[in-house]
Structures are given as structure tokens and as C-alpha cells.
């Protein structure tokens, strides 16, 4: 993987769970939570877990404000863009409205070749259930962030009801979008409970849910 991964997509597509999984599994230096859209279930809500895994969490300018919907973002968020020693995953808020926060870092992005800008897609989210809708979303995300999308993530799931056929159905639709845009599928995330031997497009990663409580 590249040194910096920026995750975008529709809200509820699974960006934050994937960000936390990538940060922990890939031993990244930091996770930058730039979600100004969602007030709950943000990656900043698992600070302890991240820190115990050696991941620095960068989020708001206000400390201890998990209960805040203020959009203030820590200026530390620009560090991985300028410091080539740092590996990082950026977790953006959903939709083009969440992606526009990237604009504030535009002048810091010195090494664009270090960056993967990935769209998380779950075809069971009605706004991304067809190839044409996924393509439209890619265009919107690029327009509002001014960053070229470099890859797609298949995160098609119905949470605990997910089975292999759902991942396959997702792959088929996302592949269609991929062929039309030339943007490759770089990861497929597979629910932990699903003991599958199949392999799917891109790198396959087992997803452990950290953000949602068991009773949810």
C-alpha cells in the first residue's frame, strides 16, 4: 500500500471501520479523522484502541469532545503530507460534503505519488447500488476534493447478514464501474464472521468491527 491512504465514499459505506482496520493491521503511524458529517460512530470514538496499537489519532482541535459536532479539524492533519517518514490513513466524512475538507490541505500535498485516494463502495447502500451511481459519486468526490480517485474498495455487506454471494454481487457492479472509469478495485473487505476460502478482487482484508457495539 501507499504511504498515505485517504478513504472517501458515501456515508455508511464503512470508511471508518476500514480506516481503523487498516491503521491497526498495517501498523500505520497515524489515523486522521476528518469526519465533519457524522456525529456518531467516528474513528475518533476508539482512541484507546488505536493508541494501544501504536496509532496516533489526529482529530478535532478540541480535546475530549467526542460529543461535539463542531467541524474544527486539527492542523496536525497536514503532517503526513509534508513528512515522508509518516504513514497514515485519512478518514473523511461521507459524500462530496465530507470530501471537501481535503481542499484545506491542497497546498501541503507535496508528494501526490505517495497518496491513494480510495472510494469505499457498498452496493447495499441505495446511493451506490449501480455502476452509473458509483461513477457519479466518483466524479462528485473528485470535484469537491480536487484529488483524483486512484482506487475502489469493495465493502459490499449487510453487516452480520453478509454472505459470499453479496460480496460477489458487489464485485460485479463495482467491476463494471471500474472498467468504465479505469479505476481499479484495490481492496475487498470481508466480514470477520464469514469464514470464506474464496478470493476476491484486489487485496483481501478481514474486517473486524470496532465502532459498532455488539448490541447494535
Amino acid at each position, binding site marked *: 500500500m501507499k504511504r498515505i491512504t485517504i478513504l472517501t465514499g458515501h456515508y455508511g459505506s464503512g470508511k471508518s471501520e476500514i480506516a481503523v482496520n487498516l491503521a491497526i493491521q498495517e501498523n500505520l503511524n497515524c489515523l486522521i479523522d476528518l469526519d465533519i458529517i457524522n*456525529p456518531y460512530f467516528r474513528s475518533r470514538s476508539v482512541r484507546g484502541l488505536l493508541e494501544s496499537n501504536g496509532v496516533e489519532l489526529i482529530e478535532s482541535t478540541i480535546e475530549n469532545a467526542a460529543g461535539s459536532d463542531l467541524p474544527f479539524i486539527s492542523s496536525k492533519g497536514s503532517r503526513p503530507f509534508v513528512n515522508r517518514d509518516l504513514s497514515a490513513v485519512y478518514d473523511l466524512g461521507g459524500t462530496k460534503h465530507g470530501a471537501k475538507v481535503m481542499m484545506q490541505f491542497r497546498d501541503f500535498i507535496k508528494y501526490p505519488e505517495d497518496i491513494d485516494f480510495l472510494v469505499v463502495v457498498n452496493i447495499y447502500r*441505495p446511493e451506490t447500488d449501480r455502476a452509473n451511481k458509483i461513477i457519479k459519486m466518483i466524479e462528485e468526490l473528485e470535484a469537491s476534493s480536487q484529488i483524483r480517485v486512484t482506487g475502489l474498495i469493495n465493502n459490499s455487506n449487510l*453487516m452480520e447478514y453478509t454472505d459470499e454471494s453479496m460480496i460477489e454481487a458487489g464485485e460485479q457492479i463495482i467491476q463494471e464501474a471500474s472498467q468504465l472509469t479505469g479505476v481499479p478495485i484495490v481492496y475487498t473487505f470481508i466480514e470477520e464472521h464469514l469464514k470464506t476460502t474464496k478470493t476476491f478482487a484486489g487485496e483481501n482484508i478481514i474486517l473486524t468491527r470496532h465502532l459498532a457495539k*455488539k448490541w447494535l
Partner: protein
Amino acid sequence: MAKVLMKGNEAMALAAIKGGCDAFFGYPITPQNEIPEYLSYHMEENNRIFVQAESEVAAINMVYGAAGSGARVLTSSSSPGIALKQEGISYIVGSELPCVIINVMRGGPGLGGIQPSQGDYNQITRGGGNGDYHLIAFAPETLQETVDVVKESFDLADYYRNPVMIAVDGLIGQMMEPVDMDKEIPQKDLPAKTWAATGESGKRGSRNKIVSLHLDPYDLEKHNLKLKEKYDKMVENEQRYEMISIEDAEVVIVAYGSMARIARSAVKALREEGVKVGIIRPITIWPFPEKAFENLPESVHTLLTLEMSLGQMHQDVKIVNQGRYNLAFYGRAGGVVPETDEIIEQVRKYVGGNK
């Protein structure tokens, strides 16, 4: 229709469209913003009305106007915003207009916080507006149930000519869950709205008035008694609840919404150990499901009320209990959501106790 993965707020917004909502009037407040955001895009697409009002007060009065002219209307807000809407809600009830109000509850009092809470129980069931009035209030537990009651609420509102509230806490508004958006729901045979002030007095041959003012106290009392008959009918027909693992329970938890979800996972764990615990889950918090408490098994000795507030529903449990069982209460407030283990520990305090 196959299931899709939806966020609670978004699911409620889409459910409203599917429930035949003609118009939405609202004002932004966290954690319900995805509702107006979703509707701002999709109402127009369906040739329906979306207006972002200048305040919650204006929004609910727009609801009044649109409902008075015969439309199916929705507004949504969160706790402090619902407080601002109380004026209009009282007028809407007094004028016998139907509408649906979604309340995605957050912590209070005051501006409070944006984290989930059930602190509006009294505001919803006792009403913050003036006068004798009630509204049916659903407090669903899953997104599927939420979607189903949102759709059904438009019919119920029309049927009783009274507002219906969907009271969920922020967790249900913000969580993701698979839902079948097109699940069949019960439908009512509804008469035409011949009472509505539609601006068609010419066609109708008579004029309609939407009014909550009654100058003669005896007239007003008569009107209030007529409304009371409606509330009695709602109490008789609309109590909804679920009984979970009640058959041989010693301790019965009373919990709704997200708290019921946590209780459910606690009960599952406790049952695996052989602890006899069950749940009464109110699906309507008004009318309060008194019927659920009528024929509890002999084994029950304690009712344990769980809330994400500090004993508001517990008052209703006390009223319905009438001294029959030991009563216990556990609540968290201010947006703090308890863990399953916390609930397990609470239940353990009371198992093996005497009746």
C-alpha cells in the same frame, strides 16, 4: 424487495416518502440532519415539497398550515428543537390536524449534547405545549421497525386527525442496519379530508375553517371532551409492546429503543447462564403499554426499568405497577450509553430476590 443497508435518519426520510408524505418543513439540528438533507434532494425528485424553515417554531407552523390544507406532512428535529415545536404541536392537536413528527433525541437539559439520550420521555408523553393533549408516540428499536412505524404513522395521523411522533434516540438515527424498505405495513381505510381548508370553497360550495379558538368555555370543554374520547380510543387500540423471554422470568426489564437493544443482549447472555430475566419493551411510549403488565407470570418479583434518562418512564411503571412488584431503576444520562455488562450487573442485584 431485497434488503438494503441504511442509516437510521436516511431510512426514516425514505420511509416518509414511501408513506405518502407530501411536504416536509424542518430546521437543522444534530443528530437528525440526514433527514432534511435526504429529503432536500429526494422530495423534489418525487414532486413533493421541501422547505428549510427559519426556525423550528416556523417549521411546525408551516406543518400546521400544510396539514390544515389537507397534505400529509412531516417535520423532524432533536430534543431542544422539539421543545421549540411545542407551541405548534398544541395548536395542531387542538385543531385536529394530522402530521408526523420525528424526534431524534439527544442529551439535555438545555443545549445539552449531541450524544444519544431518552431524556425527552416526559416532553413527549406529557407534552410541553399548553392544554390537555396527547399524541401517539412510537419508540422503535430496530431500523426495520422504525421504517415500518414511520410509514404507518401517516395513516394513523390521518385516522385520528392527531399528530404522531416517532421518538428515537440519536443512536437509531445514526446507526446502520439492513432494512427492507418495502415491507408491507397495516393500512387504514381513510375518509376524504372534507374538513380541510384547501382553497376550494368555490368548488365545495361551503367554506372550511381550521381553528383552535373557542370563546365559550362550555364549547371549549365540549371540544376537549371530544378530544379525550379520541385519546381513550388510542389508549384502547394503539398500545404496542413486545414481551421477550417473559414466561418464567423473575426479573422483568422495562426498556425501549436503544436501551432495549442493550437489554436484549444482556438478557441473551444471562439466559445462557440460566438467569431468569425477560423484557417488556414498549413500542409506544404514549399510550404507555399498560396491557403488557396485566398478566405477568407468577415467577415475576421485580420490574427493573432501564432508561437513558433518570427515571422518567419509571414514573409510568410505578403507576401501572400499583404496588404489585418490587421496583428497581437504572439509568444513564447526558448521552452516556451503558454497556451490556453494566446491565448484566444490574440484573444480578435482583435475581433470587423475594416477591
